[in-house]
């Protein structure tokens, strides 16, 4: 069983109902085939980078689904091609990293945060984790820890400044 992802652009000139019904028709089509729809996303009205069919914007949709037989992809693409409401489409099969990425994205792990931010968060967590033990520890140890935390912070800021350069 493979996981696929189909992204398509719907003509924005159509009425809202028609635009929504396009998504529903393909969702139903997939369901009738007996495949599991993992997620369907409306990415909204976006500006196109270049005009397609004399339109400068389009409504983006993305459906993620699991499918047993790859033959159905041909049928799906044929119907997308025949559909006048759809301006452009792209079907992609996802590997394990793609599946994981999409899951993380849905859970809000990926977005404005990039991976280097995550590392910083980890460091912050470590620093905060060391805080509660301070009360038990001697004053000297506390001082050492504070110095160490400051150094890590300084290192992080150095990294940042390097990146900015």
């Amino acid at each position: 069983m493979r996981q696929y992802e189909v992204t398509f652009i719907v003509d924005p000139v159509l009425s809202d109902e028609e635009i929504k019904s396009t998504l529903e028709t393909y969702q139903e089509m997939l369901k009738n085939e007996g495949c599991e729809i993992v997620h369907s996303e409306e990415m909204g009205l976006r500006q196109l980078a270049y005009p397609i069919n004399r339109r400068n914007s389009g409504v983006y949709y993305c459906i993620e689904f699991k499918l047993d037989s790859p033959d159905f992809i041909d049928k799906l693409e044929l119907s997308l091609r025949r559909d006048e409401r759809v301006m452009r489409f792209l079907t992609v099969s996802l590997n394990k990293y793609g599946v994981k990425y999409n899951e993380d994205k849905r859970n809000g792990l990926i977005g404005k945060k990039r991976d280097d931010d995550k590392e910083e968060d980890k460091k912050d967590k470590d620093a905060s984790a060391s805080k509660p033990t301070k009360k038990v520890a001697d004053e000297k140890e506390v001082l050492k820890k504070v110095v160490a935390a400051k150094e890590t912070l300084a290192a992080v800021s150095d990294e940042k400044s390097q990146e900015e350069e």
Partner: protein
Amino acid sequence: MASRDDIKFLSNPKIGQKRDKYCRFKRFGIKYIDYKDPDFLLQFVNEQGKLLPRRITGTSLKYQRKIATSVKRARHLAMLPYLTDQLK
């Protein structure tokens, strides 16, 4: 932090030095490049919308190939232009 030795340099000693290039995908453990994220892909493209070479971005060959495919997919979906001027 003022006690640190680095204050003895009046000018930044790193200016004029070559910065080490590295593959950001390997360093940060990014395994998948999303073709639906044009803002991210914009980093690997020049002002005319052409792919930047590896010698400038420092990307490893494995991920350069993946960047190329996802940029091409983004172009197909009109998220990135095939050709323009003043993209950035």
